[in-house]
């Protein structure tokens, strides 16, 4: 039992490290971890869960907005801005970067670029999910 737990811990630590190494997570995530304490033992989990729920909603909105033609760039931009804020708050670095790129495309009124970028944004949000708690 203990060995299993230790193994799991090690696994988690490895995954965690890889996420940092690959740039999926950044310093901010560490801050979140530091906020976790005995009074809030599941703080990070709660926050990340909240984030995922929120991002699911966001992605849904994003999909809808992207289906419209012509693209409503200002709406896309504001959506992205929100998502960027959330993702940066939890330290989802890559997601945040993708959001920035997306917004650049929005600013440039680049329809194709936006579509292209949506894929990566989603993908990058994925690995965070895999960082299960």
């Amino acid at each position: 039992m203990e060995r299993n737990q230790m193994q799991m811990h090690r696994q988690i630590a490895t995954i965690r490290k890889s996420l940092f190494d690959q740039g999926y997570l950044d310093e901010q995530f560490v801050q979140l971890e530091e906020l976790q304490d005995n009074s809030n033992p599941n703080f990070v989990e709660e926050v990340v869960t909240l984030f995922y729920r929120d991002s699911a909603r966001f992605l849904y909105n994003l999909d809808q907005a992207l289906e419209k033609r012509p693209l409503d760039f200002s709406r896309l931009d504001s959506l992205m801005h929100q998502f960027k804020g959330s993702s940066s708050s939890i330290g989802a670095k890559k997601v945040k970067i993708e959001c920035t790129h997306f917004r650049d495309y929005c600013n440039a009124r680049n329809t194709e670029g936006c579509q292209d970028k949506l894929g990566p944004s989603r993908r990058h949000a994925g690995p965070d999910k895999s960082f299960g708690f």
Partner: protein
Amino acid sequence: MNLGSQVLVSKQSMMPSSSGASWNSVGAGDGDGNSSDQFPAGLRVLVVDDDPTCLMILEKMLRTCKYEATKCNRAEVALSLLRENKNGFDVVISDVHMPDMDGFRLLVHIGLEMDLPVIMMSADDSKSVVMKGVTHGACDYLIKPVRMEALRNIWQHVVRKRKHEWKDIEPSVSLDEGNQQQKKQPEDPDCTSSANEGHNCKTAKRRKDDEDEAEEKEHSSSSSKKPRVAWSMELHQQFVAAVNQLGFDKAVPKKILDLMNVPGITRENVASHLQKYRIYLRKLGGPQQSGTINPSFMGNLDAGYGSLNELDLQALAASGQLNQLPAQSLASLQAVALGRSANPRSISVPLIDQRNVFSFENPKLRYGQVQNRHGYNSNISKQMNLLHGVPTTMEPKQLAGFRHSFNGMNSQGLIPMTGQSQTHDHLSRRPVLSNGMVGNTRDTATAVYNSAASQVASLVQSTSLASSNSFPLRGSSGIPSIMSTSTLQRDGNIENVQNRPQNWGLQGVDLTPNPSQHTNNMQGGMNVLHHNYISDQNIGGSKVIISSGEGSWTHITDDPSPVNQPFGTEEYSQEDLLTPFLTQQEGVGQAENDFGFDWYSSSDNLPV
């Protein structure tokens, strides 16, 4: 991002409420020892953000800093929370982009109504947005992701703001105030009969450490023993002459007093006046300017605007003659607009209590408000000061008067000057056109005047944007017509703004009165005035004004509640302010001699 439509409000206290309260009410004398030891623990923070993730993280961070955090994901809810607990919070942190209300509007509201320090935050770190925060009066601007370190230091904004409030309030202790001050931290209900938030805020703000309180008592006791000195234009001129003669750096109250050789004023009067003057000059751009500005101030004023009245100003603005006015002239104009003029033939301006003058000088950005503030071209700011400067330092009474005067002033086309942005720009001392562009003083002044109408329009619009709820200015683009206002004022009525909503319509401008709750259909003029207040706020103008202004504004804009009340006490002051202004032509002297009008912003003569 909202999780559904539920409004999320939860309050979690790290500290027992008593200690939290005691932290704020050190002055009250209860729990001093405990609260000061724990400071800034127990700081009551309200966090507003539509993003639940951020909200949660922030709340946790704040609680880790031992602050008392309340989170809220809707701006409207936040506002109502703040209104319900007048002194329930010390600082507000708000996101910029929110679906139900623009963060800046919320910022302005809070600054006006409660005069709390507001910190903006956003993932957006572009300079324009940050500048917007500054101009709207935010104390600070945090970039997401927000780190613990950033949150740890937010208490400084609270202290700073209170400190500035104290400074503003102190010199302006009046007989009335004296009583209040003597009272031990009156609770809100006990506050002035005007029952405006301003007063409440004021008294709340008065809760400082015992030292300040003692000082205040001293002040009040001393001031209550002697009548307030009315710094008339003549007196001020003498003062300025003395200062210039001595040299700005060497001007000490004693020497100034001797030079002035005016019976009836004490060294303390001169000292406080000097302090205000210094602040004012600093605001304008440094002591080196003081020597030049003031003389030219007076000089310009004497130049020929003696008989400038609101009508003239309006005409001037309309005709674009104002373009030719140098920046300083604008300041004079401002002064004139305010109704002040040193020359007998010039517009007489009601003397406003000294503190009024400086209210805008203190860029106390509640927020850091930002400056709240946001510097503006000195010239522009001068003008703006005129508008907003006046009310800022006014007591509720005076405030009422100011409102009237402002209305008048607005019509004069000064409004453009007092664009939101402008007022906020006090700190930067660069003229900020109402459209938000910052330019040179001269250029700006010229440009401003040139496009007075358009500026006003934009100002109005921007104002409405900022305060659409509260001001009928929304969407109206027009220059509030002083005419109507002045007319009213001329009557010497301190009608509540609400009574003459239509008067605000600016000539040639479509001011669509906002039929919303505002009893006072303060349109462009009011909006501008509002701006002034806001800017004042940002500037960290004297607390007095803001509070009173807020009080009145609050009533005007936000609550259907009796608007009259706040005006009750204000009327007097407004009348004072307006009367001189309006009745220049009639040769009415300074209506109220007991007001130290902010002659700083107004010079005696407007340059022709």
